């Protein structure tokens, strides 16, 4: 059926089964490939996007439930790759293979928007749904603190 998705402030008219996971609508229908597939059962966080301010796993979110909401993906974080989270990620060389990092960054952006100065425990809790097989967790943790500093400046 015909659906309208608002992704990064832009309306996308797509034709999709309403039960299709939002992930595949974003990737295959809207052509935004920054959001990744990792597990399909909301256990790894590679597919994390922000819907109405909340970090959600798009791989098991039916596309119909996202209609009328504001969807943000990695492509909408900044124009110039210069959001404080992106700058902190670059400064502390967080990504290795990089595949999970779109999801990590979206979770971090959502965290900092509701809690501008999270503690280590709050970071652990907010990021617990994002798996990184390269083990970049220590750098992610440090980079979230750094992004909080950069946001204040």
């Amino acid at each position: 059926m015909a659906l309208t998705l608002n992704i990064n402030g832009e309306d996308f008219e797509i034709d999709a089964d309403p039960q299709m996971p939002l992930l595949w609508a974003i990737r295959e229908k809207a052509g935004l490939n920054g959001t990744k597939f990792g597990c399909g059962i909301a256990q790894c966080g590679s597919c994390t996007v922000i819907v109405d301010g909340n970090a959600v796993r798009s791989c098991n979110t039916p596309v119909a439930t996202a209609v009328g909401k504001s969807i943000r993906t990695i492509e909408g974080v900044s124009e110039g790759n210069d959001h404080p989270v992106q700058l902190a990620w670059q400064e502390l060389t967080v990504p290795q293979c990089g595949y999970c990092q779109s999801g990590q960054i979206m979770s971090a952006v959502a965290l900092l928007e509701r809690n501008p100065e999270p503690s280590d425990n709050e970071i652990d809790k907010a990021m617990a749904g994002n798996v990184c097989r390269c083990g970049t967790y220590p750098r992610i943790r440090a980079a979230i603190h750094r992004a909080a500093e950069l946001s204040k400046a």
Partner: protein
Amino acid sequence: MNDMNLTRRNFLKFSTSAAGGIMIGFHLPVMAEAATDGGAVEINAWLTIDPDNIVSIVTPQTEMGQGAFTAVPMMVAEELDIPWENVRHVFADANRHVNNNNLYTTTSTGGSTTVSRRHPYIMQAGASARERLRVAAANRWQVPLERVVAKQGFLTADHEEQGTIQGSYGEFAAEAAEITLEEEPAIKAYGDWWLLGKDVKRLDVPLKTNGTAIYPIDVTVPDMVHAAVQACPVPEGKLVSYDFDAVKDMPGVIAVVELEQTKDVPAFTDLRSAVAIVAESWYQAKNALAVMPIVWDNGRGASISYDSQTAEAMQLLSGPGTLLLDEDGNLGKNLDKGVNHEAVPGLIEASDRQVIGEVYSRPFETHATMMPPCAVADVKDDRVDVWTFTQDIARSLNEVADQLGRETTNVFLHQTYLGGGFGGGYNMDVHRQAAAISAAVGRPVKVIRSREEDIAQDSQRPPVWGNYKAALGEDGLPVALVTHFVGEEKMPVFSQRAVANMPYLVPNRRHEYSAVQNHIPIGYHRAPGANSNGFIVEQMVDELALAGDWDPLEWRIKMTEGNEPWQRVLMAMKEKSGWTTDMGGGEGMGCAVVESHGTIAGCVATVAVSRRGQLFVDKLQYFINSGYVIDPLVATEQAESSAIWELSHAMFGGLMLRDGRIVNTNFDSYPVMKMPDTPPEIEVHLEMSEDGWWGGLGEPAGPPTPPAVANAIFFATGNRVRSTPISKAEL
């Protein structure tokens, strides 16, 4: 420009324009040829220089987060002597490599070898280009060659009439490309470096913070369809029948394709018996495949379980194993240096200070790379284009040509970034699947393995079981030692890594091995062999030390006397870690050292165990000697990464094999380390010998991690952890 370039440029357009018109402005990893548009000149196959003095450097190895895409340009730039900000990195052309007598020597990316083994010829390429630029300048300026200095992108000379004259590399590139050197220059020695040895950030970092790095799963070509695949849940089993009629009317479904296995028992990269559903969307293909009735012949594997393999291993361990010999029938590496192996069992039997070890074990583990295996293939009559998960682009290109019966000249395998590798990109048949399916349906196809299919079909890390017996001398140090490690039948060699080459100076040693029946495919898995065996060897060492009343760290120092690379690591552990075996209060420190990939890596772990048995790994300290290091920042990143990788498996991992199939299906039943479990402190100390040898750095910090943690648990609780996952142990 030829057709190939046009096609490649189209590919880039497809991949980026689909992403909402995002233009990748930063170091776009275009193909080498594309970089020649602005008049860039190819000096040799490794680099081009454009008129603005921008140097594009080719990396034949794959980039999976380990830094090859930065290390190779660094090594070339060091010799060429060009400012780092002028360097661009480009993927190697696999077709050019394969069809020109392996132009780049090798494209294989594993074993932590990109720097350690390949630096001589990679640096040579940069040195050769620099010398040809110098000759070009000397010729044009009519000055003696020795007066021409090449530095930071410029050629300078003192001319008798014109004084100091200067020109950029770009101005001399065309002439340099025509020059043949009479003699190739030697590469620089340590101490003469200006770039190597400094912290250099990986060039691919910015692409990986805004979603623009392209992985195989992101490649889109016109008219492409999607495929979900399933092979027999019991590996080695074969497809008997399926009922496509039951699903052919489901939304989006286009076709079913049977993937035929041509060999009875396929090699690791041969196509395995499987079935694929092709649909307009991958989601539709996966849904249809999930409900299509399929009948399998499970084959011999159906009677094999981890329990049956364990029982077989215990049986084998109760008797003698096969004496480890190399291909020439001699004792293996490091075992021929005055070591007596024949009298060992008798010496132990006659001793009144015997130490008899209990059985240790490690289970199967899987790669679970964040990107599940994926490939795109576009098979046309006159050419084949492939993008795939591979750690060796040339090998995969050859395999696609083999699969389709095509000449390699018409097969183009394009490099992308990899969503993790860890060895998983070697023993893989996803590129053959994509090629076979595209050929069958006559359209480009993207194959994505579901996570469930990935874990079921991956080439797994094999299990190992091991024990030992020893006899101690009057000083409490071992005088005789027998180890017996049981691996599995497909790659039994893994059961000896880090065992047979242990450096401890036991005068009478004997290493034996056996293998259990196994049908599960086996592959390389970040420090293969050493990753599991280190857990056993380095706990054995602690047991031997304590049995002889030695401090475990002092024992290791004593038993490696005269071995400078090990001594450097061990003395650093002693001096910098705050080492003690007596923390008290439920806390403990443990140490372990494992040599792999030519690098000695030591770990000191500090743990706390609560009264209810909950384990906290508070701190991991690493002391690493790889001889030289060219990029301490990336070396540190890789140590952190290897540490968490290995701790993840030791704490939470373990595949369960039952009735021939892997029981774990996804991250819910194969848990991996997440941020809350990550040790709050990980320190990396690079303790370099800088004395003429090169070790690898992508893997070695992993293997000492589980035994250091287990040894620390012993000092915290008095309990020995003899198997993993530790999360299931009673502490």
